[in-house]
């Protein structure tokens, strides 16, 4: 490995005093991502999710999308396991903590998302899906003008998105497309958290693609890269493979070291 980074170290020795710190810093940053992936992958998924939730809550509103991601992309039993782990780790329930620490308009939505225990079977009610698509459309259109109440605070919206099963919501998504010119996610550009909720529940592939894209850009920020790390460590390879394949070139170009191997490993057939 030293040989691979020899150029790096040469620079180091030539300007020993001045570059030492920054070199170490970039090395650390390099390995931090790798370390994160490893630590996340090795922890029990329930504990991992519980810790991720706690951290996101602590960090505040810009990180609430992590809560949405976990609550919406896990299966009912995985989310339940995370809630149990949270009890054991922090002596409180996740609902309590969310309900008392989230102050803004997203509180109702987040608490409800995290409390969900969705039915997982394929059975779907077409008629209910149609009327619910309409209700969502009304809620979104009505609130685009009125700045006081957002769509994510509407009780109808919340209970549809947090109690219905995922297959049912996918049908609602399709029905919405029929009655509105755009998809729900397009209409929700203004309310990012709600948009991500719908994405994760109905079209998770879109969400994953966006995370990959943002993280592999030239000017990608820390958080974006962390998001990618989190995805890679927590989602099933099967779900990510197709997307990772599209970004293969960018991965080879932009990412270095062991972390690159991890990302490319998602593409390989026999990981783990």
């Amino acid at each position, binding site marked *: 490995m030293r040989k691979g980074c020899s150029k790096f170290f040469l620079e180091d020795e030539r300007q020993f005093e001045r570059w030492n710190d920054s070199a170490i810093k970039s090395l650390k940053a390099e390995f931090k991502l790798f370390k994160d992936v490893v630590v996340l992958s090795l922890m029990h998924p329930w504990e991992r999710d519980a810790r991720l939730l706690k951290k996101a809550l602590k960090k505040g509103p810009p990180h609430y999308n992590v809560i949405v991601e976990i609550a919406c992309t896990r299966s009912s039993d995985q989310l*339940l*396991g995370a809630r*149990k782990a949270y*009890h054991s780790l922090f002596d*409180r329930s996740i609902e309590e903590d969310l*309900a008392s620490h989230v102050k803004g308009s997203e509180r109702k939505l987040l608490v409800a998302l995290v409390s969900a225990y969705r039915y997982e079977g394929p059975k779907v009610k077409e008629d209910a899906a149609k009327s619910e698509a309409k209700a969502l459309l009304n809620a979104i259109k009505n609130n685009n003008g009125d700045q006081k109440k957002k769509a994510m605070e509407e009780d109808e919206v919340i209970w549809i998105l947090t*109690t219905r*099963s995922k297959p049912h919501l996918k049908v609602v998504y399709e029905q919405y497309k029929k009655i509105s010119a755009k998809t729900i996610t397009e209409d929700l550009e203004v309310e990012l958290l709600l948009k991500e909720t719908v994405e994760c529940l109905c079209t998770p592939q879109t969400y994953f693609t966006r995370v990959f894209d943002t993280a592999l850009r030239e000017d990608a920020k820390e958080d974006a890269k962390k998001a990618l790390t989190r995805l890679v460590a927590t989602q099933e390879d099967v779900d990510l493979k197709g997307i990772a394949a599209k970004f293969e070139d960018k991965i080879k170009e932009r990412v270095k070291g062991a972390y690159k191997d991890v990302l490319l490993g998602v593409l390989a057939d026999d990981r783990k």
Partner: protein
Amino acid sequence: MNDIATLRIFMVFVCTCNTAIWPELFKGWRLEKFLNSEENRKSNEAVVVQKDKCHESCVIQKEIKEEEAMATLTVPTTVPSVSEDCEQLRKAFSGWGTNECLIIDILGHRNAEQRNLIRKTYAETYGEDLLKALDKELSNDFERLVLLWALDPAERDALLANEATKRWTSSNQVLMEIACTRSANQLLHARQAYHARYKKSLEEDVAHHTTGDFRKLLLPLVSSYRYEGEEVNMTLAKTEAKLLHEKISDKAYSDDDVIRVLATRSKAQINATLNHYKNEYGNDINKDLKADPKDEFLALLRSTVKCLVYPEKYFEKVLRLAINRRGTDEGALTRVVCTRAEVDLKIIADEYQRRNSVPLTRAIVKDTHGDYEKFLLVLAGHVEN
């Protein structure tokens, strides 16, 4: 036995002018529909306790020990083998009429685990679901009591909750009762049983069939998975007591914060908060919530508080109202006895005696009769003198 069924239907049509019959009628139909769905389901392996974390299995052990002390159910020290029980039950059904005494003697003295085993073995031995056989043989209040009793507690809760969301038998009270008086894991198992039976989630149905403030309260209650530890944060209790007092003084009863405290905090924490409320502001919170006696939402809110901190008082009141009024509310009586016999009926009975100066068993004898009365007494731990 088909004669009895036809006779039952005939009697029902004759009595259609009596609207009080309708809820009972639908309850019967609901039970039958439930029984039919049994054919599609796997056996009780569907409701499995996840013992992944040591914490949880410790909690379950604690639950079982505590419950045994407060239950009224008596199980003989030497229990006959499961196959013997099944044989006896089969005998009780055969021939003309039914030997109700035998049914009461066996099922009335078996705990949930034993009953589950009996049902499984009966189905394997005779190729028929025990509940179906019972449904064919029995009728009315006695039948409902036996059928509800024979169910696994999680399935029973799922059935009661489902009934409570249907139009003719809707009951916000029952939903709240199930959500608040069960432990976090019991509520969870009920929700899992609901998935298995009805192919949808309890939360969906509650969201769909309740409205307004009731939905605002019931949906979080039913979705809760409370922390079960005894740890209490006194500073938090003070803050939240103050918050509750403010909201109640402003008559903001369905405020988000009020619901948040009641639906997410652990029972121990809520208890501490309400104690502090009383210390600081003089009144019990329920006294302050009596502002408008006709307001149904306030009534539900008061019952919620009761269920969370002293459920035995809540159940005592339900029983008192069910037994002492003119006519008996068999539905409520059956429900309370069935769901608490293995949990804390003893404490409830003590509370009943304290409040009404009459033992619960005597009140039951006075107000009910026949096999229904007999089975209730057996479940309530009454010993023949």
